[in-house]
């Protein structure tokens, strides 16, 4: 044995600091974030992108991506995908509208029942995946179509339309709705406005009010979920199980990890964040539409991959996924501010996705020592 240890000493080189930094999953996200901000600071500084309103604009968009990316990230590390996230967002929004407007339930009840239904769908996704052993890609692709179908069928049948409005009025005075659609620190922003730190409206019925009147709950949810997800993944026993379930489910089972339970819970968590997204969106727009959330599942997955997670599971970072979402939001809105044709955003997405996947594969080889 002593032979082997001297062997290790001479053959394994000390890892350089750079190499050590490179195997952090967040690396790609960090570099990307710096690059994106540098780019827009240089080329679009005057566009209003970095004024209070501009910052709020891309922060909200980034926060939306972040919310669903946290769910997709934990699920991907646990070794599964959920393609039904986008449909779930549309479905959840529509359920709230149907319950509160068509059926006239109080808003809080509509929200809670919607959460229960959607999380149950998430559990069903997970249950089918672990029981049949089918790839989650296929199972949730089925759910994608099933939920989207219902999201169109239900309002068509009940209301003869595919957009149900009037939700903001229905949420008036409700105790639960502001947790998703409200704003915090409004007094602080009013004060900033009064102090002249941020601009105030000079005309119209909002005269004297600051241009940014508070932090939307959407951003609070996003940051809260990122912190929760990061701590869960890196600092708890359950987090270790998530890594193990995605790294090698059979090896994890032999070591006594309840792999099936972990995977089902991650599907439920993904459904939960999709519903958080949906409720916030419905509260913001005041309406629910059958086409809400289309392609969100892929955007979530791309943010997660940019954030350094491996598509094959077992490796990744919530912070990385959050940075991926931030890159997403900044570029999407930044191109708008910079007056660049918005279709180019998709080109950017495709290119950055390809780079991220190549980088991740390379990093994985470095970690596992494969060649």
């Amino acid at each position, binding site marked *: 044995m002593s032979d*082997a*240890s001297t*062997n290790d000493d001479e053959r394994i080189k000390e890892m350089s600091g750079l190499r050590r930094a490179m195997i952090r999953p967040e690396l790609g996200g960090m570099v990307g974030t710096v690059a994106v901000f540098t780019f827009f600071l240089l080329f679009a500084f005057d566009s209003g992108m970095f004024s209070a309103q501009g910052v709020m604009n891309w922060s909200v968009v980034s926060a939306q991506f972040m919310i669903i990316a946290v769910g997709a990230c934990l699920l991907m590390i646990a070794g599964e995908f959920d393609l039904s996230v986008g449909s779930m967002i549309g479905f959840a929004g529509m359920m709230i509208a149907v319950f509160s407007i068509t059926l006239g339930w109080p808003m809080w009840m509509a929200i809670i029942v919607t959460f229960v239904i959607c999380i149950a769908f998430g559990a069903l996704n997970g249950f089918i995946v672990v029981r049949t052993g089918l790839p989650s890609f296929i199972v949730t692709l089925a759910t994608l179509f099933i939920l989207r179908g219902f999201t169109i069928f239900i309002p068509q049948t009940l209301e003869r339309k595919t957009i149900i409005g009037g939700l903001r009025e229905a949420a008036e005075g409700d105790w639960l709705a502001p947790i998703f659609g409200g704003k915090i620190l409004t007094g602080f922003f009013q004060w900033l406005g009064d102090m002249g730190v941020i601009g105030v409206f000079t005309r119209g019925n909002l005269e004297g009010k600051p241009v940014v009147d508070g932090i939307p709950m959407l951003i609070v949810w996003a940051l809260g979920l990122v912190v929760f997800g990061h701590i869960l993944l890196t600092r708890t026993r359950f987090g270790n199980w998530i890594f*193990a379930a995605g790294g090698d489910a059979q090896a*994890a089972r032999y*070591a*006594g990890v309840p792999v099936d339970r972990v995977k089902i819970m991650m599907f439920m968590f993904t459904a939960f964040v999709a519903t958080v997204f949906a409720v916030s969106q419905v509260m913001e727009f005041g309406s629910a539409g059958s086409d809400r959330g289309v392609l969100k599942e892929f955007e979530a997955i791309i943010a997660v991959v940019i954030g350094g997670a491996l598509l094959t599971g077992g490796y990744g970072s919530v912070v990385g996924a959050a940075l991926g979402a931030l890159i997403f939001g900044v570029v999407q809105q930044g191109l708008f501010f910079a007056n660049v044709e918005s279709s180019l955003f998709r080109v950017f997405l495709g290119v950055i996705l390809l780079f991220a996947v190549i980088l991740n594969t390379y990093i994985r080889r470095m970690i596992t020592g*494969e060649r």
Partner: protein
Amino acid sequence: MTDPIIRMKGIEKHFGSVIALAGVTVDFYPGECHCLLGDNGAGKSTFIKTMSGVHKPTKGTIEFEGQAMNFADPRDAIAAGIATVYQDLAMIPLMSVSRNFFMGNEPTKKIAGISFFDHEHANEVTMSEMRAMGINLRGPDQAVGTLSGGERQTVAIARAVHFGAKVLILDEPTSALGVRQTANVLATVDKVRKQGIAVVFITHNVRHAMAVGDRFTVLNRGKTFGTAERGEITPEELQDMMAGGEELATLEGSLGGTV
């Protein structure tokens, strides 16, 4: 002579119309390395899976520390102190050594009523256990993927021992390893045996078995030819029993005695 820690009596296992085990009786003693030999398809894997709670025997009884045992699943067997180290499924390469070591047994520490993974404790234990096994890590956060096959087996063995295994089942731990790494794993087996743990060593390599074995049981076509103690049997006899006697003798003739 001490009492056996596990007695497998008349174990039969049928898969539909296939009889994988046709009445196998073996006793395993603490502090001994019991080698289970057999060619592919002899029933070695089925036998150890029965021992570790993966399969339920169709017939026969398992006595663990003098009491009849009925394992519903592998977790029961692990809880009782029967740990199995599978050749390819011991470790997760993308995870750190420390995370792997405590997989399924994570130490926790309560902060404000919430339990957190106690990384500090986990890292400390991992480093000292690895040092005891002769593996020098760069750090506890080194990924298992960077370890050699032999080191991975050693980590898995150390893990099983640390978490109180009384019986350690090693499923072909050396079959994919080079000479040096095999020697390391065999040395680890020796260390573990000296701690009073019953080691069940599955292999089809007679030389590896002879290197560490105290007892030898050969399985052939779901049956056993009985158990021999060290010194009672020669490697050639073991080899013959594994292959079913005569056929190998003729084969050996044509290969010039190289098998």
